């Protein structure tokens, strides 16, 4: 028995195996946003109907910012839920949609058919998406009264999650 070989071999193999083993604990596609707890980047954008919206002007009430597109199936799924929520929290919270790499006309057609739960803001060159570090639609940010980002949801937002996150911010 060559002890040196045994010790060296195990010393090389075990950390490697350990690294591979812990890899199961992480979803390679999930990245925690560094913006959580930070001030939400301000933007002044125009929506498809011509209105101008500035985030900083909405201070005092929580804001839900939803990056979406018509080609993304979860966005279509969460659309009715967001409509209901926007109705329910009218006067208490703001709901802003930001168009993510999509055609304005398609968006207009879509909201004409299925209803508007808030403005659909045009994001030229995806600047707002970059400032918010959006990887792909849909992504939803919850901003508190003081303009701080308290939560970010990647993918479809559920009604219960929305309620649980938004209620304490009111």
């Amino acid at each position, binding site marked *: 028995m060559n002890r040196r070989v045994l010790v060296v071999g195990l010393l090389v193999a075990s950390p490697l195996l350990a690294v591979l083993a812990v890899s199961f604990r992480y979803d390679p596609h999930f990245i925690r946003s560094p913006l959580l707890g930070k001030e939400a980047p*301000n933007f002044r954008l125009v929506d498809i109907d011509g209105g101008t919206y500035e985030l900083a002007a909405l201070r005092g009430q929580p804001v839900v910012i939803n990056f979406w597109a018509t080609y993304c199936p979860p966005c279509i799924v969460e659309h009715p839920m967001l409509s209901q929520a926007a109705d329910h929290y009218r006067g208490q919270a703001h709901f802003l949609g930001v168009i993510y790499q999509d055609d304005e006309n398609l968006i207009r057609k879509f909201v004409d058919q299925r209803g508007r739960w808030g403005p659909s803001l045009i994001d030229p060159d995806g600047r707002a998406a*970059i400032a918010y*570090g959006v990887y792909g639609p849909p992504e939803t940010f919850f901003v508190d009264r003081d303009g701080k980002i308290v939560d970010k949801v990647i993918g479809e937002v559920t009604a219960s999650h929305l309620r649980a996150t938004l209620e304490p911010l009111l």
Partner: protein
Amino acid sequence: MSQGLLSIARAGVAWALLTAALAVALALPGSTQPLEPPAAPVAPVASTAVSRPLGDPAGPPRSGAELDRVTERLASRMRCPVCQGLSIAASRSISALNMRHEVRELLAAGYSEEQVLDYFEQAYGEFIRLVPKPRGFNLVVWVLPVALLALGGALIARLTRSRSVRSASAADPALADYRERVRKETSD
């Protein structure tokens, strides 16, 4: 004679170390400018509709060929968020195009490459850097390979120092004639 060999062995070690040093030198970024203190966040920038928590540009505005060159260099160090493993310089996805556009604009305004990277990092996380920042724990990724190279180089230097050829041990009789043949073949 042995003196000469010793110096050659030293040269061998030096060569290994040189290669290692070369790797280190190439691995570390050329110059790290002192970072600006974090600027006052969120002040609307007049020309754009989206404010960027960036502070003041660290240098004078860039343009022309220099801007192209710096944009290309920085873009090749940033990861395209939607295409796996490609830089935003290589990818032609809309995300990559938008990001490159933004990078170019910021570089044109005179922001340093590190400032631009920091801005993207604040939004996307460290993931956006295609090469980890050579700082703290990240140094592991640079140090481990170089350490192995140095260790191996030292081992080879030690192995090649001894000149004596001992004959095959008797513990291995099955190989005796094989080795004899090998010796014949190689003694030309």
